[in-house]
């Protein structure tokens, strides 16, 4: 694992590059637009620092580039390799995701068929309740992680690990930047 300092530096560099490109394209943004641009560039910078190795980063970039307005931004932030990253990631990710979705649908359908036949009436079994709880939470986690709904449990946890690290680095850098800007502005 890379030391977090390197990660943060890389993120900061990319983020500021993206922000500069944002500001160059559009002047006089209102606060919400600025906030959106800041967040977007931060997210994309964080995702691109992974270089397409993780699923969540690919999904994040794919989601960002879906929107027409943001696509230019994303491309600018990513720079020259944006075409390669976006196209490749989106296509591969879509293929894999579609396959997984389809296969999971088939699986669920068949399990449903089997379940109707067995009809096990276990109302208050601890294990089943625990399983249900875990499943609920897994669903919530899948909704949180970008691209999470396409993953199975093992990958989900791995992606969560990576995502948490990236998020933490992102938060650190942003916070330091915010406080530095505050200091500069106040003084």
């Amino acid at each position, binding site marked *: 694992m890379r030391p977090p300092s390197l990660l943060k530096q890389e993120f900061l560099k990319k983020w500021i590059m993206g*922000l500069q490109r944002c500001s160059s394209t559009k002047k006089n943004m209102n606060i919400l637009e600025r906030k959106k641009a*800041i967040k977007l560039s931060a997210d994309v910078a964080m995702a691109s620092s992974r270089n397409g190795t993780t699923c969540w980063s690919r999904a994040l970039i794919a989601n960002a580039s879906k929107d027409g307005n943001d696509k230019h931004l994303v491309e600018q932030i990513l720079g020259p390799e944006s075409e390669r990253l976006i196209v490749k990631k989106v296509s591969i990710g879509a293929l894999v995701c579609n396959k997984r979705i389809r296969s999971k649908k088939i699986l669920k359908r068949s399990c449903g068929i089997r379940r109707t036949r067995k009809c096990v009436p276990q109302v208050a079994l601890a294990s089943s309740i625990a399983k249900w709880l875990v499943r609920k939470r897994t669903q919530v986690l899948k909704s949180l992680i970008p691209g999470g709904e396409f993953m199975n449990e093992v*990958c989900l946890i791995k992606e969560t690990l990576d995502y948490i690290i990236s998020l933490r680095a992102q938060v650190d850098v942003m916070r330091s930047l*915010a*406080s*530095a800007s505050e200091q500069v502005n106040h003084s």
Partner: protein
Amino acid sequence: MENQFFLNAGIPPPAPPLHFGPSFSSPMSAWQSLSSAMEIQATELNCSLDQSQDCFLNPNWEKSTDYGLQFDSTLSSMESSPAASNSNISKESFMIRELIGGLGSTGNSDEISPHSQPLLASHINGNNNTNISCYSTPLNSPPKLNVPMMGSLVKGKLTSLGKSMGLNSSVAEFSADPGFAERAATFSCFGSRSFNGRTSQIGLNNNNEISSYRSNPLTANAKLPRVSSSPSLKAMVSQVGGVQWTNKNSTLQDRSDLASSQEESTISEQNPNGDPDLKASKDSNSRKRKAVPKAKTKETSAFPSANAAKMSEPNDESNEKRCKSTESNGNENSSVKAEEDAKGSKGNAGDDKQNKTNNNNNTKPPEPPKDYIHVRARRGQATDSHSLAERVRREKISERMKLLQNLVPGCNKVTGKALMLDEIINYVQSLQRQVEFLSMKLASVNTRLDINVDSLMSKDIFQSNNTLPHPIFPVDSSASAFFGHQPEQNPALHSNISNGTMTQCSVDPLDTAICPNLNTHLPPINQFTETVPQYPTFSEGDLQTIVQMGFGQNQSQEMALQSDNFQGQIKYPT
């Protein structure tokens, strides 16, 4: 008896005239004739009760009349129905005969044959139940329970027909039929589920989807090795050519389902004594060869190291295809393999021997063993392929959850998956909310998006301070402490700094920017001071300093927030 048999043959059998020669012209008709012979015998026995010497047939007379009526009805339905239903009957009888074959191969026949006559009456009832169940519901439990009786019934009939064939020979005759067991297995699978071929296909698709995302024939054929281990079916496989099926794959798939269901519970009780080889193969399944899934798939398809080489050609082709597809994978092979091999296992010399031979037979040249995860079943645990895969998956998940525990603060005391997931969800949500909030804050602080560099530089150009070196060092050392790699951080920073492109003059105003902030934070920072390196230049100039500056300001806050990093090496003095 034979005269009576042929008299009763006036009831037109739904097949060509009976012939029990060793060479069956058409297997279908033979079985149909056998089944009809069975029915006819039953009806004959019912009709000729006064001729029977056994006394206990009488108490069953009333019952048998009822069943006889039903027999007649079934027989008539057999006659009147088109070939489909005849094939249904034959299917049932196939399955029955396959089970009989399984019984006969062990020597049950020897026990049963002397008792064939007295048992006939009770077997009529058994026969009745079976046959009634044939038409009413898909075969589930009744045939299995009645199989021993059915077996003896059939054998009794054979002997009574004066074939002068030993039971073994009769069984051998059954088994000599090309594709007999295959069909039987096919239809046993059909019987165990339903006669809806689609259902079995769907089930197979499930297995395919569970196992991998490869094409269906691949995984379907990949299940074949398990089947071939059954001795009663081994001979059949080589004689597949005699079978005429529209979809060969489906039959093979169904046979694999038979094997899987055998492994489960249902039919295995029918072969208690034996298939000793089947049992050995079951044990050998404890050492399975699992194809490594693609990086993200969770299930692994288990290919027990059976006699795959003995299978027909399509199977070999599928093996090759499987090898190639698994070759394209192979991310976590070595590590997982080492992990799996380190587990405890059921020691079994026979298994090893069998596995070695199977390995020799199984490996086509382009198949490297490293693509398979060798998993051993632990002592006292199920050797089912599904449970093994499940166990591997669970262990992967638990291992990663442990890593997450170190990462998420406050997760150390929590045990249990649900609570852990709760904490993780809360943490991720809080981080995401922080990002939102901070971006909003940044947007509000800066009216323009050209945030830090220009503004910071312009602000601080007018400030000058000569205490540049000293404040920086505590920041850097505290930053290094913050980053946590204390002994190696400074060299790392040095290396980063040596890449700096900023000139000396531009460094100074930035350093002055640090100073006002530093002065306020010197007291808490000083305690982190360890070494005092010299930083003549900064890499990437302002970015680095801003980071360090920001970190210097936020030291106290972030110490509280982050007690550990991912590697778990850090202890912050608080």
